[in-house]
C-alpha cells in the first residue's frame, strides 16, 4: 500500500511536468498548426537559469519567480524575428525553422553553462519527506503536484473565463473567421507562443531539483511531451492534462512493476489511442 502510494505521487509529479510541457505545444499547434520542435529548449533554458539563480542567491523561490524570463525572451525573439518572416509559407517551413533552433539554443547553453551535470537543491522547507499512511512521501514531489494542479487551474480559468482566453479558443476553432471578426490572430499567436515557452520554462525550473540540469534534457523531455500531445489530442488543454497524467502513471508504474518493458507501455498506449481515435482522446478532427 505504502509502495503504491509513493508510486502514485511519483506518477503525478511526472504527469504535471509533462502537462506543463505539452500544454504550450498543444495550444500553439491548435492555434497555428505549428509544432515547436525547440519547445524542449525552453524547458532546458528554464532549468539552467534556475540553477544559476539558486547558486547566486540560494533562493529557489526567486528562481521560480523570475527564472522563466530568459526563456520567454528567447521565445519572443524567435517568434517575432524568425517564425513571423515565414508566416505566409507552409506550416512545415515554420516547423523546420524551430528545428534549427534546437542546435542554436543547445550550443548557447553549452557555451554559457558547460557540459557538466548540475544539481539544484530544493528549498529547505520542502526538503525531507512526510509520512502519510505508512508511506514516505518526499515533500518536494507533493509540492510539485499541487503546483502543477494550480497551474492547470489557472490556465483553465485563463482560457475559459478571460476575454483573451475566449479569443484564443476562437482562434483554435477557426483562425480565419476569428481574424475576420477583428481578432489580431498573429499577435495572439505571439502571446500564446510566449505563454507556452513560460510554461515549459517553469516546468524546467520545478523539474530541476528532481531531474538535475544537463545538456540534452531539452530533447529528452520532448519525445514524451509529443506522445502526450498525440494521445491527448492536438489543441486540447484537457487532453494535455489527462494524457500527461496517464503517461505519468503508466511510465512510473511500468518502471516499478515491469522494468524491462516499461519503455514500451507508453508507446503501446499511443498506438492503441491512435488506432481507436486518430485525432487523440480530446482532439477535434481537423482537416
Amino acid at each position, binding site marked *: 500500500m505504502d509502495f503504491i502510494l509513493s508510486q502514485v505521487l511519483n506518477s503525478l509529479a511526472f504527469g504535471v511536468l509533462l502537462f506543463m510541457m505539452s500544454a504550450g505545444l498543444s495550444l500553439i499547434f491548435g492555434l497555428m498548426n505549428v*509544432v515547436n520542435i525547440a519547445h524542449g529548449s525552453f524547458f532546458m533554458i528554464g532549468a539552467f537559469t534556475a540553477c544559476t539563480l539558486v547558486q547566486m542567491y540560494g533562493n529557489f523561490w526567486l528562481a521560480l519567480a523570475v527564472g522563466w524570463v530568459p526563456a520567454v525572451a528567447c521565445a519572443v525573439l524567435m517568434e517575432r524575428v524568425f517564425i513571423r518572416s515565414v508566416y505566409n509559407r507552409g506550416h512545415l517551413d515554420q516547423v523546420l525553422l524551430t528545428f*534549427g533552433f534546437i542546435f*542554436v539554443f543547445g550550443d548557447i547553453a553549452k557555451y554559457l553553462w558547460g557540459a557538466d551535470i548540475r544539481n539544484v537543491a530544493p528549498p529547505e522547507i520542502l526538503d525531507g519527506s512526510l509520512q502519510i499512511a505508512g508511506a514516505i512521501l518526499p515533500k518536494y514531489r507533493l509540492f510539485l503536484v499541487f503546483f502543477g494542479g494550480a497551474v492547470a487551474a489557472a490556465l483553465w480559468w485563463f482560457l475559459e473565463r478571460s476575454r483573451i482566453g475566449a479569443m484564443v479558443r476562437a482562434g483554435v476553432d477557426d483562425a480565419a473567421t476569428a481574424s475576420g471578426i477583428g481578432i489580431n490572430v498573429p499577435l495572439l499567436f505571439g502571446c500564446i507562443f510566449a505563454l507556452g515557452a513560460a510554461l515549459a520554462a517553469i516546468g524546467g525550473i520545478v523539474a530541476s531539483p528532481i531531474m538535475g540540469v544537463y545538456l540534452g534534457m531539452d530533447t529528452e523531455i520532448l519525445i514524451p511531451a509529443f506522445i502526450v500531445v498525440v494521445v491527448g489530442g492536438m489543441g486540447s488543454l484537457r487532453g494535455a492534462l489527462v494524457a500527461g497524467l496517464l503517461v505519468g502513471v503508466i511510465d512510473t508504474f511500468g518502471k516499478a512493476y515491469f522494468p524491462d518493458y516499461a519503455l514500451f507501455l507508453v508507446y503501446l498506449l499511443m498506438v492503441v489511442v491512435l488506432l481507436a481515435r486518430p485525432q487523440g482522446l480530446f482532439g477535434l478532427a481537423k482537416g
Partner: protein
Amino acid sequence: MFALLCVLLAAAPLASDYVLGILSEILIFAIFAMSLNLLVGYTGLMSFGHAAFFGISTYTVIALGVHLGISGWWGAMAGIAAAIVLAAIIGVFCVRVSGIPFLMLTMAFSQLLFAAVLKWRSVTGGTDGLIGFMPPELFGVSLGASAAARYAVAATGFLLVLGFLWCLVRSPLGSIFIGIRDNEQRMRAIGYPVQRFKLIAFIISGGLAGVGGAVYALFNAYVSPDILHWNLSGDAMIMVVLGGGGTVIGPAVGAGIFLLLKNLISSYNEYWALWVGVIFILCVMFLRQGVWGLVAGRFAKWQARGAAADAAAAPGAAGEAK
C-alpha cells in the same frame, strides 16, 4: 550530367585514403538523404524518424556477421529486407495521420527502436555497440583493408539508388506521390487511395534508407546506438533542406555540404552545431529551394537565354523545329 557524375565517381580512387573516406561517407549519407527526400520532397510527408530504417539495416548486417558469421553481402540483403519490413510496420500506423502528428509519430517510433536497442544488450551490445565484424571481400580485396574497395561499394550503392529514384519520380507512381504532395484532397477526390500510396512511398523510402544503412555497415564495420538516435534523422532533414528537396540530386549535394561543413567547423571550434543551426535557419528563410535548386534554377535560366539568343539568330531553324 549523369555521365559526368559517373566519371567523377570513377576518377576518385586516384585520391588519397583520407579523401576517399570522406567521399564514401558523403555518398552513404547522400543515399540516406535522398531516401528521406522521397517522403519530404516528393510526397510531402515530414518524417523525423528516418534513422530507424538506416539504423536497423546497419544493425542487421553487423549483428548477423558478429553473432552468426554471415557474410556482409548476405547481411546487406537481410538488412535492406529488415528496413522494408520495419517501414511497413511503422508506416501502417503513421500514414493514418498526416502533417504534424505524422512528424511526431515517426519521431516517437524511431526513439522506441533506439530505446529497444539500448535494452536488448545480448544482441545489440547496448551502449557499447557491436565490434568484431569481418568485412567481406570484393574481387578478392577485403573491404577492411582497402579504402578504394569501400569507396567502390559506396559509389555503387549511391549510383543504384540515384538511378532508381531518377526513374521512380518520372514514373506514373512518382506522379501520384507528387500529386499527393501538391494537393492531397484533389487526389482523394479523383479516387486515389491516398493512404495506400503514402504507405508505398514510406516503404520504398525506408528500403532505400536501408540500402544506405547496409553500405554504412560494410564501410564502418562497427555500429553503436547513435545511428538510431533522432539526431541522425534531424541531420538527414538538414541535408535535404540545404541541398534542396524536390529534386533527386539536391539532398546528395546537401549531404556533401553538411559533412564538409561539419568536418571544417569542428576542426576549428567545438560549437559546430550552432553554425549548422544558423546556416540551416538562414537556408529555410532565404534559400528554400536549397543550394542545388538555386544552381539548377540559374542554369535553366542561362540555358533559356541561350536558346532565346539562338532562336533570334536563326529564326528559320527555330520555326522548322516547331
